[in-house]
C-alpha cells in the first residue's frame, strides 16, 4: 500500500535520468577489461591454489599467470587465448600445472592466431562452462535447501555480522547467532583486504577487525551454516564482500561456494577505498553478471555515504546512488529480487523529529523499489560509548525497519563505537530485534503518514532533490560528479585511485568466454 503518494511520472523521470547518467559508464565498462576480470575468468576455468614458494608470501597461481601473460603479450585480447594456447602447446593437464611451469619460467605466452586461436577459445569455453555449471549447481542446491528448510518466517530478515578475524571463532559466533535467530550471517573482511590485488588462500586466523575472504573460508562457513540450517529448520544465508580490487574474483568464488549475498556496490570502492573509477566500473559489471548467474543477492553500500556526509543533507544522494545501482544491476542482468539496495538510519538523533525523518527516507526507498529486497543498515555514526542509549537507538532502528517494510535488517550493536561485536552484543542485539518484531510486528497497519505531514513532505523533497541532482549528473557526466565529491563528500577523479594500472582497453579480438556466456543470458 502506497503511503507517500509519489508521482509516477517523477519516478519515471528519475529512472530515465539514472539510465542516461549510467550510459557512458556502461560503455566504458564494456570497452575495458581488468586484471581482476581476467583472473576471475581463469578461476571460472578452474585454476586454484597459490605459489607458496614465492618470497612475497603465498601468491595465487592465477596472479602469476595473468601477470606473466600481461608481460608477454598484453591482456587486451583477454587472458584465455594465450593461456589455453600455452596449455595445449605444452600439453599440460591443468591450469595449475601451467601456473607452476609459468612460475618456473618455462612458459612464453603468445596470442594464438587462426585455428590455434579457435582451439584455445573452444578449450577455454569448455573450461569456463564447467565452472559456470558448478555455479548453476550451487544455485539449484540453494533452491532445494530453501524449499526443504524454508525461508525465514518473517520480514525483515535478520542479518548479523561476525568479525573476529579468525574463521574458527567466526564459526562459533555464526552458529550461536543463527540459533539465536539470525537469518543471514555476514563475515566481515579484514581491513586492508580490499586493497590487495589478489585473493588470499586457505583458512585464515589473523585478520584485523574482520576475516580474510578466501575460498576456503567461504567453504568452511557455508558448511557450518548448512549444518546449523538443518538444526534451526531454516536456510541460513551467508554474505561476504565482492568489493575492492578483487571484486570479480570474489564474485566467482562466492558462486563456486554457494554464498547467498554479496556486498557489491558500483561506487563504494571508488569513494571509500580510493580505487580507480574505471577499474571499479569494469569490475563491477563483470561481478554483477556472475552474481546474476549465481542467484546471489547483491547488497549496495549507500549507507556508507551517511557516515561521511550528513544523513539529512545528503539523503538525496542515497536515492541517486540507489537508482544508479539499480540501473547498473539491471544492465548486468540482475533482476529486482536480487537487488539488496542499501540505506541507513544515520540521522543525528539530536535532530528534532529525527525518527520521523528516518521513516520518510526509509519509506521513500521502499516505495521507489517495491520489489527489491532492501537492506536497512543500523546507526553507526551517532553511536557512542553510551551503550545503553545505543541499545535504545538500535531498537528504534528496528522499529523503523518494521514500520516501513524493510526486507533485510542489518542488526545494530550497542558496542558500535567501541569494539567489533562481542558474542553477547550479538545476543542482546537479537533480543532487541525479537522484541520489536514480536511486540510491534503489525504496527505498520496503523502507520499512516499524515497526507500533508512531515514524513510525506520530506519524502517528496528528497525525491525532488534526487531528480535535480540526476539532471546535473547527466549534464556533467557521472565521473565528474564523483570527482566533485557528490557522494559521501569524497572527491575521486576518474584518473586517480589505486588499481588504475590494472585496467586494459579491449582490443578488437578480445575474447572472454565467461563474459560471453554471462552476457548471452
Amino acid at each position: 500500500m502506497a503511503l507517500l503518494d509519489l508521482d509516477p511520472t517523477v519516478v519515471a523521470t528519475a529512472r530515465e535520468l539514472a539510465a542516461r547518467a549510467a550510459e557512458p559508464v556502461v560503455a566504458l565498462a564494456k570497452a575495458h577489461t581488468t586484471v581482476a576480470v581476467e583472473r576471475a575468468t581463469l578461476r571460472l576455468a578452474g585454476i586454484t591454489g597459490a605459489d607458496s614458494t614465492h618470497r612475497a608470501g603465498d601468491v595465487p597461481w592465477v596472479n602469476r599467470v595473468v601477470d606473466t601473460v600481461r608481460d608477454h603479450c598484453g591482456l587486451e585480447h583477454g587472458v584465455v587465448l594465450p593461456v589455453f594456447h600455452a596449455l595445449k602447446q605444452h600439453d599440460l593437464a591443468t591450469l595449475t600445472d601451467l601456473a607452476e611451469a609459468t612460475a618456473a619460467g618455462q612458459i612464453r605466452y603468445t596470442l594464438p592466431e587462426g585455428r590455434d586461436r579457435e582451439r584455445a577459445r573452444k578449450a577455454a569455453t569448455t573450461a569456463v562452462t564447467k565452472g559456470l555449471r558448478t555455479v548453476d549447481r550451487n544455485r539449484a542446491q540453494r533452491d532445494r535447501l530453501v524449499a526443504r528448510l524454508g525461508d525465514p518466517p518473517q520480514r525483515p530478515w535478520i542479518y548479523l555480522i561476525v568479525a573476529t578475524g579468525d574463521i574458527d571463532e567466526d564459526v562459533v559466533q555464526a552458529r550461536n547467532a543463527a540459533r539465536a535467530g539470525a537469518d543471514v550471517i555476514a563475515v566481515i573482511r579484514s581491513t586492508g583486504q580490499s586493497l590487495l590485488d589478489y585473493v588470499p588462500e586457505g583458512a585464515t586466523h589473523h585478520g584485523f577487525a574482520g576475516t580474510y575472504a578466501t575460498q576456503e573460508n567461504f567453504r568452511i562457513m557455508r558448511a557450518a551454516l548448512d549444518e546449523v540450517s538443518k538444526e534451526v529448520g531454516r536456510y541460513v544465508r551467508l554474505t561476504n564482500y565482492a568489493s575492492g580490487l578483487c571484486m570479480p574474483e570474489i564474485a566467482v568464488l562466492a558462486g563456486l561456494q554457494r554464498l547467498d549475498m554479496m556486498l557489491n556496490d558500483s561506487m563504494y570502492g571508488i569513494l571509500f577505498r580510493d580505487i580507480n573509477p574505471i577499474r571499479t566500473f569494469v569490475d563491477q559489471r563483470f561481478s554483477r553478471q556472475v552474481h546474476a548467474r549465481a542467484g546471489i543477492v547483491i547488497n549496495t553500500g549507500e549507507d556508507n555515504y551517511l557516515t561521511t556526509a550528513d544523513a539529512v543533507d545528503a539523503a538525496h544522494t542515497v536515492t541517486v546512488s540507489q537508482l544508479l545501482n539499480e540501473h547498473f544491476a539491471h544492465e548486468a542482468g540482475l533482476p529486482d529480487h536480487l537487488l539488496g539496495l542499501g540505506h541507513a538510519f544515520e540521522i543525528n538523533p539530536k535532530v528534532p523529529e529525527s525518527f520521523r525523518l528516518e521513516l520518510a527516507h526509509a519509506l521513500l526507498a521502499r516505495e521507489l523499489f517495491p520489489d527489491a529486497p532492501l537492506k536497512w543498515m543500523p546507526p553507526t555514526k551517532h553511536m557512542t560509548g553510551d551503550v545503553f542509549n545505543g541499545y535504545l537507538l538500535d531498537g528504534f532502528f528496528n522499529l523503523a525497519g518494521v514500520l516501513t517494510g524493510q526486507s533485510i535488517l542489518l542488526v545494530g550493536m550497542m558496542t558500535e563505537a567501541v569494539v567489533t561485536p562481542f558474542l553477547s552484543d550479538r545476543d542482546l542485539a537479537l533480543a532487541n530485534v525479537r522484541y520489536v518484531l514480536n511486540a510491534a510486528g503489525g504496527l505498520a497497519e496503523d502507520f499512516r503518514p499524515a497526507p500533508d505531514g512531515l514524513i510525506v513532505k520530506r519524502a517528496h523533497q528528497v525525491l525532488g532533490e534526487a531528480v535535480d541532482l540526476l539532471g546535473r549528473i547527466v549534464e556533467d557526466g557521472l565521473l565528474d560528479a564523483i570527482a566533485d565529491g557528490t557522494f559521501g563528500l569524497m572527491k575521486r577523479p576518474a584518473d586517480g585511485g589505486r588499481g588504475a594500472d590494472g585496467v586494459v582497453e579491449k582490443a578488437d579480438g578480445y575474447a572472454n568466454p565467461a563474459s560471453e556466456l554471462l552476457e548471452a543470458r
Partner: protein
Amino acid sequence: MKRHVRPYGDTTGDGMVQTSFTLPVPAGPQADGAAQQLANKMGIDPAMVVHSHPIGDDFTFFVVYGSVRHLVDLDEVRVVQREYPLLSPTEVNTALKKLLRRKLVVVGACIGTDAHTVGIDAILNIKGFAGEKGLEYYRELTVVNLGAQVSVPELVRRARDGKADAVLVSQVVTQRDAHLLNTREMAAAFREAMGERRPLLIAGGPRFDPLMAAELGVDRVFGRGTTPGEVASYLVHAMHTRAVHTSAVQTRKDNA
C-alpha cells in the same frame, strides 16, 4: 570444561568486560582518569573509558570496557547444590504421608514492612509459578498464608498456634539490607520463643544469596526464580533429615 576460565568478548581468553558507574567528581579529563584508575583497581587492564557524561555539576557517569586479568577458578565456585531430588507433587505427597502420618503445616508470610507478596504467593498459591502449581495444591500440605507486612511477633504467635512445621518468609525490599535485618530478627525470635523445637525456617526473595542461610540463622534460603516444586522437594528432604535426627535423639534418650 576447563578449570580456569576468563570472560569472553569475541576470542577465547580475551577477558573482556563492560562496567558502568558514577563517581562524585566533576566531568573532565581528571574524572576520566579517576574512572580509569578504578577500572584498573578492579583488575581491568587495559581499560577503555568509552563514555563519560556529567550528571549535574558534581557527578560523572562512565562506561568502561576492557580486559579483566582475573581467572575464574571453577573448582572454587561455591554454590548451594541441591542435595535432594526434585520430586513431583505425587511423590511429595506420598513421602510426607509415609513420614508424618499427618499433614505438614506450612506458614508463609512477607515480614517486616515488606508488602511484596507476589513472590511468596508464587510459591504458596495454587496458581504457582513457571507452570508449577504452588504448595496449596499439595494434598499433604496445610498452607497458611499470612500475607504481607506481618510483624515478627505476630508470625511467631501464628506459627506456634498453628503448630507450623515450616515457616516460609519472603523478603523483596533490600535497601539498607532490610531483608537481612528482618530475617535475622525473625530467626532470633523463633530461637528465643521455641528453642530446639522451632519450625523449619525458610527465607526467600530475589536478592538473597542462598549461601547465607547459616549466617542468617535459617535452614534454607531460596533466591530468584525459585519454583514451588523445589521448595516442596526440600520440605520432604528436610523433614526426613529432622525425623532421622529426632529419632536418633529419641533413641539416645531411651537408652540413657
